[in-house]
Structures are given as C-alpha cells and as structure tokens.
C-alpha cells in the first residue's frame, strides 16, 4: 500500500483529537475506572495512530480506532501491573473489558460520559485551581504545556498539580458520576464557578500577555456549550453561557492600542460583536422563559441591557438597578451593592451615589473598583482633590497593567 502524505495524517489526527478527546477520555475513565491510566493509554493510542495510519490508512472511524486501541493498551497495562493477581477489582474490570468483542475499524458506539467527567473534575473536594487545570486538560483537551502557559505557571508545577488532583480522585473516592438530584444544585454551582473562573482569567489577562496565551475565554465558552448540550435543563448553565458571550462580545473595546483599560462608559460600541450579543441574548431569553432564575441569569440580563444600549447615558439604569437588587437578594455581597449604587447614581445623580457608597467603605476598603467608582463620582461633582485621592488609593490596589494605565491617565488629566 502506498503511504499517505504526512499532512493528511496530521490533519486527521488533529481533527479527531480536537473533536473527540474529551468524549473518548470520558468513556475510557468510565470503563477503566482509572483516570491516570485512561489518559496515558489515550495518549499512547494517539502515538500509535502516528505510526500506523501513514501505512495502513486512516480508519473509517478514527475515534473508534483510538478508543479501541486505548482500551487494548489499558488491558495490557493492567495485566502487567505488579501484584496484579491480588487485585480483585482490577481483575473484574479486566474480565469485563476482555469479554467484549471488538473490531478496531468498526464504528462502535462510544458512550458520552463527559457530564460525569465534568462533575468529577469540578468536585468541591478538589481545590479550585486544580479543578480548573483538570477540566482544561480532560474536557478541553489542552496540553499541560498550554495550561501552564495560560496561567503563567511552570509546566512541571502544573504537571504535579494535575497528578495530585487525579490521585485525590482515587484516594478520596470521589465518584465518577452525575450528581443525584439532592446534590445537583450545589455541584452544578461548583462546575459553573470553575468555568467562570477560567473565563475571568482569560478576560483579565492584559493584551500583551494574551497574545501568548491560549484563549481561556473561548475555552470557557466551549465548556459552557458542552454543559448546556449535556444538561439542557440547567438554566444557570445557560445563564453563564449567555453571560460569557455578552461579556466576550465587548472584549475588543476594553483595551486601547496602548494597553489602557477603557471603562464601559467610554468603549467604542461599534467594535462590539453583534452576532455574539444576539446569541447571548437569545440563550438568555430561552433560559429565562423556564422560570428558574439564578445569579448567572440575572448577571447576564444586566449585561444584555448594557450590550443593547446605544450609549452609557441612555442605558436602562432603572431596570439594571432592579436586577442588582434581585441579585443582592440571591447572593448578597457588597460588590453587588456597589454596582447597584453606581446604577442609582445614573438615575438620581452622583451625590446620591456618593452618599450610598459611604455605606460600603468598610467592607470594600481594599477593593480597587470601589475607590475608582468613588473617584469617578467625585470627579463628576467637580470635587477634584477628593477625586484625586480616591484615584490614588485605587491605583495602589491594582496590579493589572491596563487598569494602572487607565488610573494614571485619569490622575494625569485631573492634575493637568
């Protein structure tokens, strides 16, 4: 047989890895009940594809080929393990695996166990950053190197983090399952917070570094899409997807060409991605119609009002203020209050806002946006020395370069 051109094999492997990594892995973990082994044998199967496909041709179903090859490698590995004879559960698994008939080129149905995979990676017993890394590796299929770079971590540190997390799943007995109804809400919240964390990491990365980094925002959106497909009744998952799309739609206008942060008020709205806004808005409307409202949907609703306003002044501040009130009832926090009071300052004027803001001085004393908001209200009231003092406080509290540039610019303008 003639050997296939390398480019064609490369493309086929890239495609199957990109499209079916997580589903294949999820099915393997379900069958083999061993996270690390599943990942190792899947990786091995990909290497085998590199060796075998150029001569033998690309199989009819590349995903089945990888899955079956990985399973066979797993059987070999389990057999070779030391003290294997004494490990009854492993023998049982092996027996199950071996008793099935297999044909590598047939288009066998590979079960989709990704929902189990997601809930396991985001189990609350796993530390948040480890869940983040594990989810990006297992569900998004990013390499350790890519994840390390995305979080500006050492590859070896990240590798250890992943290994520890997988060991914890085994040693602590974290179940590989979709949570039962009584745990559903709590566990879904844990998954959503991991996805939103990934999104925010990507969103806050400044533009210079961002060029080198995997687009975490897009990965988070992809994760939320998978989740909403697998769990269509989870309205908060749809809410989060809508929220991220609505935020992401505005990302091109957040940083100017000098790397300076531009607040919403001054963003060039013609740069906003209309298609993403429409999509986010449509997802939000459909999820709100199911009448199971939660914090992500409310935040998405607020974001949608901003996205649809033609400018800052004509934004529907009255609705926004009410939505923040509802959000505060569900998830009381001084940060929610801060945003609500900013909305009030747009309705009743800066003095009203400033009076309300004073109530938050204690809980938000080291929260940069609080001082930036206070500075802005004072500026609007022409209280220049007070405004300057608040901008200076805000500047000391941020390590984000884009925000620093913005605040320095503000100070410079007021002094000038």
């Amino acid at each position, binding site marked *: 047989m003639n050997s296939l051109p390398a480019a064609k094999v490369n493309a086929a492997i890239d495609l199957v890895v990109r499209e079916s990594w997580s589903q294949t892995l999820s099915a393997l973990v379900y069958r083999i009940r*061993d*996270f690390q082994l599943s990942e190792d044998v899947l990786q091995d199967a990909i290497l085998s594809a590199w060796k075998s496909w150029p001569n033998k041709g690309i199989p009819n179903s590349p995903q089945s080929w990888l899955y079956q090859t990985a399973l066979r490698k797993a059987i070999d590995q389990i057999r070779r393990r030391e003290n294997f004879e004494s*490990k*009854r559960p492993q023998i049982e698994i092996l027996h199950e695996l071996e008793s099935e008939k297999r044909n590598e080129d047939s288009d066998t149905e590979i079960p989709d166990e990704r929902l189990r995979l997601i809930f396991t990676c985001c189990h609350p017993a796993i530390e948040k950053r480890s869940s983040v890394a594990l989810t990006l590796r297992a569900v998004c299929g990013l390499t350790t190197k890519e994840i390390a770079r995305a979080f500006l971590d050492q590859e070896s540190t990240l590798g250890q983090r992943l290994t520890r*997390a997988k060991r914890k799943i*085994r040693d602590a*007995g*974290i179940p590989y399952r979709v949570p039962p109804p009584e745990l559903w809400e709590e566990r879904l919240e844990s998954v959503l917070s991991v996805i939103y964390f990934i999104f925010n990491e990507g969103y806050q990365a400044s533009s210079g570094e961002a060029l080198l980094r995997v687009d975490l925002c897009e990965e988070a959106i992809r994760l939320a899409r998978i989740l909403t497909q697998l769990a269509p009744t989870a309205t908060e998952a749809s809410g989060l997807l809508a929220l991220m799309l609505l935020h992401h739609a505005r990302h091109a206008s957040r940083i100017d060409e000098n790397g300076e942060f531009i607040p919403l008020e001054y963003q060039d709205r013609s740069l906003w991605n209309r298609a993403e806004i429409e999509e986010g808005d449509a997802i939000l409307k459909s999820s709100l119609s199911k009448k199971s409202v939660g914090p992500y949907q409310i935040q998405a609703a607020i974001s949608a009002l901003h996205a649809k306003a033609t400018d800052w002044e004509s934004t529907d501040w009255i609705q926004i203020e009410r939505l923040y009130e509802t959000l505060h009832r569900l998830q009381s926090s001084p940060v929610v209050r801060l945003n609500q009071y900013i909305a009030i300052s747009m309705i009743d004027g800066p003095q009203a806002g400033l009076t309300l803001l004073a109530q938050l001085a204690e809980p938000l004393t080291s929260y940069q946006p609080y001082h930036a908001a206070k500075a802005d209200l004072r500026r609007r009231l022409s209280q220049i020395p007070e405004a300057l003092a608040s901008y200076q406080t805000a500047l000391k509290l941020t390590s984000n370069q884009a925000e620093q540039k913005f605040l320095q610019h503000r100070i410079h303008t007021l002094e000038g």
Partner: protein
Amino acid sequence: MEYLLLIYGEESKVPAREGPEHEKIFAEYIAFTAEVREKGIALGLNPLEPVSSTKTVRVRNGSAETTDGPFAETKEQLAGYYHLECKDLDEAIAYAARIPGARWGSIEIRPIRTLNPPTVGRGGDPAPSA
C-alpha cells in the same frame, strides 16, 4: 472505601454538658450511631475523653518523653470519631454532615489508605482511580 470521620470542636463550645440540651444531642448521637450500625457500615466509633486527660509520647534518642496535653496546640480538639465504610466520598460527606458535632465544630473526613488487597466496593457508581 473506608473513611474516618473525625469530630473536632472546641471543648468550651459544646452547647451543654448537662440538662435537656445535652440530652437532646446525646439522643441524636445514639440515633445516628444506631443507624450506621444497623446499616452495617460502622467499622468502629468512639467518643474521646477531654484533652485534660491527654498525654503525648515521643521517643527521641531512644528514650520516651511524655508530655501533658495533645500533640498540637489547636483551638479545636478531637472529640471522637466514626470509622465508616462508604461507597464514595459523597456518601461520607453526607454522613459527616449529619453528625451533631458538625453544627458547632467540624468533621474531618480522612479516607483510609488500603494496604491489603482492596475488597470489591458496594456497587453503585465507581470511583475512578488515578
């Protein structure tokens, strides 16, 4: 899997040493204990005497030193434990949350490391190993 559910609390914060409140908590412990025993998942359980009765032993350079009190000077002390067989961490968490002491103290869940060949689990969803 086997788990140790360690009950920690500040001795001074235990709601009551006697009286109706104490009896109510005591009855809750009795009921919980009876339940885990009936289910056949209790491998061991015990309340512990207060820290005032504690001794700590160290062997250094071949000789044993004994000191009064617990090993670590922490606010919360170990007050008792349940050693349970649970199908996975979620089940252990659910039991831990029902121990009365969780309401004023905290329950530490420690999976027990298996050195001997593991026995087959109780079915249900498997926990993947790493």
